[in-house]
């Protein structure tokens, strides 16, 4: 069965610091990869996605993620975080052999301090 690991459970950064959140998955076949974000008091929203093509994908609010197939990774990055980026971030994977369900990581709680 596929699984997703997010090794950073809680991250605290100062504004303007750079961000990288790790995401690794276990599945050897073709995958679709997603990062979702949940801002305080709001529902899950799609931040960015990878289906195929360029492994460096750009999402909303200056976020990007790089798919490295050899490392089974899809790390999320942002060069300079803002206080408004405080949220919980979830990595998710859908395997082509696993139906249409998403398998999620346990999430990373990001707090950005002024």
């Amino acid at each position, binding site marked *: 069965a596929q699984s997703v690991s997010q090794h950073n459970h809680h991250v605290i950064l100062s504004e303007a610091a750079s961000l990288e959140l790790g995401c690794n998955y276990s599945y050897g076949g073709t995958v679709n990869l997603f990062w979702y974000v949940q801002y305080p008091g709001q*529902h899950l929203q799609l931040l960015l996605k990878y*289906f195929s093509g360029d492994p460096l994908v750009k999402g909303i609010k200056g976020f990007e993620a790089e798919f490295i197939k050899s490392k089974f990774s899809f790390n999320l990055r942002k060069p300079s975080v803002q206080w408004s980026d405080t949220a919980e971030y979830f990595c998710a994977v859908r395997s082509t052999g696993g*139906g249409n*369900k*998403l398998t*999620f990581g*346990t999430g990373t709680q990001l707090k950005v301090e002024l």
Partner: protein
Amino acid sequence: GAGVSQSPSNKVTEKGKDVELRCDPISGHTALYWYRQRLGQGLEFLIYFQGNSAPDKSGLPSDRFSAERTGESVSTLTIQRTQQEDSAVYLCASSPRRTLAKNIQYFGAGTRLSVL
């Protein structure tokens, strides 16, 4: 319409009672999913409906859990004889009719279930 709508937003129940959670998908979306999020954990897939096909129930944790969906509209998740370990946020998502390769799931705000 707007996004995925779930009701109630919060539900407190006593152990052993049955509960029903409702999900209204985005209009025109043919696929509907239920997930569960326990405290400190990621989302856990429960069940998936796609049009008139047989649902994928592979994530339901026990026979106390069931879900229905009529056509491509509202879905109800029922938990019978609730237990304290059922306490969680239950999230619903929907996605439009597209090939799986381009399928994005849109989430509702969830129902927070507390079993006392």
